[in-house]
C-alpha cells in the first residue's frame, strides 16, 4: 500500500546516537543521491540515513523494455539520473504507459547502487499537474534535510510524541506535506517555524500565515495550528487567531 511515510525517530530510550530510521520518504536532489555514501546496505546523505526518496525533474529520455521502463530524470542539480520502473507484464493499463520526455514528474522510489552507479527503482512516477509543487519540493528538500540532520545532532533530545494527526496528513504524493519528522509533518513544521520567527508581540496571525504559505489552504493551516497548540509548541495570545511559540527567543 501507500502507507510508507511512517514517523522516523529514535529507536527507544537513551543511546547517545539517535539514528533516524530510514522509514521516512525523503525528498532529495539528484546531486544529493549521487553524493550519498553507502555502507553495507545503507545510504547516508551527510550522516542522515535514506532509503525511500522522492525526486522531481524532467524526463530527458524514456526507453521501454519488456519488463521495465528506464527513464532519465533531470532536476538540473546533476546529470540526469536513471530511474527504473518495473512493469507488471500481466496487467494491461496505466503501468505500461510511458511518460514522454519533456514532462516534469515526481518520482518516489528506492535508492540503489550497482557497480558504483546510482539509480532509482521507482514505485510511483507521477507527471506534475501543478508546477508549484516543484517550488514546494525544493523547499521541502532544504527543510527536511535540515531537520533530519538537526535531530541527529541533538543527542540529548527527548523523543517527541507522535500524534495520529501527523500520520493522517499523509495522503498520497500530491499534497506534498506528508513527511512526519519528530512528530511534526512538513506543514506543521513550516507553520511552527513562521510562528517562532515572528518578532511581533501579539504573535503571528492566521491571516499572515496564509499570506506566507501560499500553497497551503487555510484549513490545513488551522489544523496545523490546532495540533501545535495542543502539543504545547504554540499558544494563543490576543485571540484565537494569533499565536506565539512557546520556545521563542
Amino acid at each position, binding site marked *: 500500500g501507500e502507507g510508507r511515510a511512517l514517523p522516523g525517530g529514535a529507536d527507544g530510550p537513551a543511546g547517545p546516537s539517535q539514528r533516524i530510521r530510514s522509514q521516512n520518504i525523503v525528498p532529495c*536532489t539528484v*546531486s*544529493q543521491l*549521487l*553524493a550519498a555514501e553507502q555502507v553495507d546496505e545503507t545510504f547516508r546523505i*551527510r550522516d542522515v540515513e535514506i532509503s525511500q526518496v522522492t525526486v522531481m525533474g*524532467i524526463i530527458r529520455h524514456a526507453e521501454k523494455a519488456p519488463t521495465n521502463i528506464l527513464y532519465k530524470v533531470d532536476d*538540473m*542539480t*546533476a546529470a540526469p539520473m536513471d530511474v527504473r520502473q518495473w512493469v507488471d507484464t500481466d496487467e494491461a493499463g496505466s503501468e505500461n504507459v510511458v511518460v514522454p520526455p*519533456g514532462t*516534469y514528474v515526481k518520482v518516489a522510489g528506492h535508492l540503489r547502487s550497482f557497480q558504483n552507479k546510482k539509480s532509482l527503482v521507482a514505485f510511483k512516477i507521477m507527471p*506534475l*499537474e*501543478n*508546477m*508549484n509543487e*516543484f*517550488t514546494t519540493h*525544493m*523547499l521541502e*528538500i*532544504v527543510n527536511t*534535510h*535540515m531537520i533530519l*540532520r538537526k535531530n541527529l545532532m541533538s543527542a540529548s533530545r527527548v523523543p517527541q510524541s507522535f500524534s495520529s494527526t501527523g500520520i493522517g496528513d499523509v495522503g498520497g504524493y500530491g499534497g506534498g506535506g506528508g513527511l512526519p519528522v519528530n512528530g511534526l509533518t512538513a506543514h506543521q513544521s513550516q507553520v511552527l517555524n513562521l510562528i517562532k520567527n515572528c518578532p511581533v508581540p501579539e504573535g503571528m496571525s492566521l491571516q499572515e500565515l496564509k499570506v506566507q504559505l*501560499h*500553497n497551503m489552504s487555510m484549513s490545513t493551516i488551522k489544523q496545523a495550528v490546532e495540533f501545535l497548540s495542543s502539543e504545547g509548541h504554540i499558544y494563543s495570545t490576543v485571540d484565537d487567531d494569533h499565536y506565539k511559540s512557546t520556545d521563542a527567543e
Partner: protein
Amino acid sequence: IHPTGKLFVLSDGEGKHATVELSEPLEEEISGVVEVVGRVTNQATIMCMSYVQFREDKSPFDLEIYNEALKIIHEFPEYFPFS
C-alpha cells in the same frame, strides 16, 4: 519574442528581464512561463540549450514564490547541492 524568432525576453519573479538567444529560430509559439537551460554569455544574455513550457492548464505557476524559493536554496548549499 523578436520577429526573427531567435531571441526572446523573459521576465523573472522579481520583474527583472533576461534576453535569451537561440541558435535556431523558434519553431513554435511560446507563451506563459518558460524554463530555459543555457549558458550566460559575456553580454549577459543566455544562450539557450533547451527550454520547456510549464503546464499552467490546471493551476498558474507562482513565479514570485519560486524566486523566493531559489534564494532560499542558494542560502543552503549544504542541503541543496549543485554538483
